[in-house]
């Protein structure tokens, strides 16, 4: 597309967006932001700035790791439920039901307080190389969030695997592909394309679950804001900033996923 045409396109889009009432709303929003900037207390920001960045980084890191591991676990879970024999599909189904039927906060506390109180009773665990990790809080958070993501996404992948037309798989077999090759080249990619729109939603949900790890003393951005609130006795300022940070991350995530989705052919199956 030429630069001229894209400029016209932009202008048309802007005119759809900027109607009179929207301009008024934007002005009101700006006024609110300015009020917040001037009349609320922000003098604590320089002091906690670095800690906040550290917290954001940690939250994003937990999000990335748990989503990747959770998805890797969700593929076999979905596959087992979609086309596995009963002794694979039944445990997978039970796992998904349990994860989806109980609150994440309870799972987290079950792992951290429950298992965390059991482990020290066994000397061989305390002597193993895992012990330095098991004494910290973040592995429990990562495990709980990973299992939760796997449970929800496993159900999605079940539908995605089942939704791939039989003809595709039969055609692949007619080509003489091995079972592993069929899975790798046909079944998994097509199921993944099907699951991609829901993957966006699940990732945003996962982002919104990450602050729960603050309740088991992992210092993510939520824990930083709690610390600011305790130190300065301010109620609203840290929370409002925290909400803004999460909204920004959500916006970036949704935008990134929409770019990935746009690169994938619409017509499948």
């Amino acid at each position, binding site marked *: 597309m030429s630069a001229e045409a894209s400029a016209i396109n932009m202008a048309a889009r802007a005119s759809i967006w900027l109607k009179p*009432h929207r301009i008024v709303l934007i002005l009101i929003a700006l006024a609110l932001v300015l009020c917040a900037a001037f009349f609320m207390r922000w003098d604590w920001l320089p002091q906690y700035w670095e800690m906040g960045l550290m917290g954001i980084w940690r939250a994003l890191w937990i999000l990335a790791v748990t989503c990747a591991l959770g998805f890797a676990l969700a593929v076999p879970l979905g596959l087992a439920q979609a086309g596995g024999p009963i002794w694979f599909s039944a445990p997978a189904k039970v796992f998904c039901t349990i994860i989806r039927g109980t609150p994440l906060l309870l799972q987290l506390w079950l792992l951290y307080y429950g298992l965390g109180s059991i482990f020290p009773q066994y000397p061989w665990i305390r002597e193993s190389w895992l012990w330095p990790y098991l004494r910290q809080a973040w592995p429990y958070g990562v495990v709980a969030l990973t299992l939760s993501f796997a449970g929800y996404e496993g159900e999605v992948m079940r539908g995605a695997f089942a939704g791939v037309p039989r003809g595709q798989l039969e055609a692949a077999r007619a080509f003489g592909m091995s079972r592993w090759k069929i899975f790798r080249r046909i079944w998994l990619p097509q199921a993944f394309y099907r699951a991609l729109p829901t993957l966006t939603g699940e990732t945003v949900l996962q982002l919104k679950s990450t602050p*729960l790890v603050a309740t088991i003393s992992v210092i993510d951005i*939520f824990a930083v804001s709690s610390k600011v609130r305790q130190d300065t006795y301010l*109620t*609203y300022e840290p929370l409002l900033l925290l909400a803004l940070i999460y909204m920004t991350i959500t916006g970036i995530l949704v935008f990134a996923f929409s770019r990935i989705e746009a690169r994938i052919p619409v017509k499948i199956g």
Partner: protein
Amino acid sequence: MELLSPVAPGWGGTLLVGLLHSIEIAIGATCLGLMIGTAGAFGKLYGGPVTRDLLAIYTTVVRAVPELVLILLLYYAGTDLINQVLTAMGYQRVDISGLAAGIFVLGFVQGAYSTEVIRGAILAIPQGQIEAARAYGMSPGLMLRRVTVPAMLPFALPGLANLWLIATKDTALLAVVGFFELTLATRQAAGVTKAYLIFYLAAGALYLALSLFSNLVIGRVEAWSRRGMPSVKEAR
């Protein structure tokens, strides 16, 4: 095992009271959310441009910010606001009960999600049905009661059922602000007796039982709302 017995030395009774509080809040929040959601969906579909934009901001913001943050914000902001209004009007400050605050906060969050669910369900109704109702000269209220709600129910119920399950699990988040529900009851019982694993497993079983029981009821209600419609299996 004696730890879980419902009478005095055991903590089973405490857990059950916690479960009852959780269910109360979930029911209250879902009802409030349904009211907000219905109003919000109609505002989004038939409202003026300002109403639509404001509702879009509401649903976007609530769905983009973690529930935990919203709960803290609304919990403090809500109780603060009520007390300021009361003192401005010359009344005494009141302590907002945890139950009311929890229902309000979770209902506000649920409202955003159910707005989207109900909006989608109304859009899925064949347009001719609503036009026909208008052509009969039905008032908006009558149309809502006789045509829109019954026709949208089969489309809305799966989403709303999902929201109910989310509501039952979101009540656990209120433990963080110190409201006594199942998760906090569990934490207290476990903290006192040091039998962490047993109590968390028991609480998990209670939540799971609630979810499974809800699924059973939801299946019945969905079948009822779809009565007279062709089955999906036959349509294929």
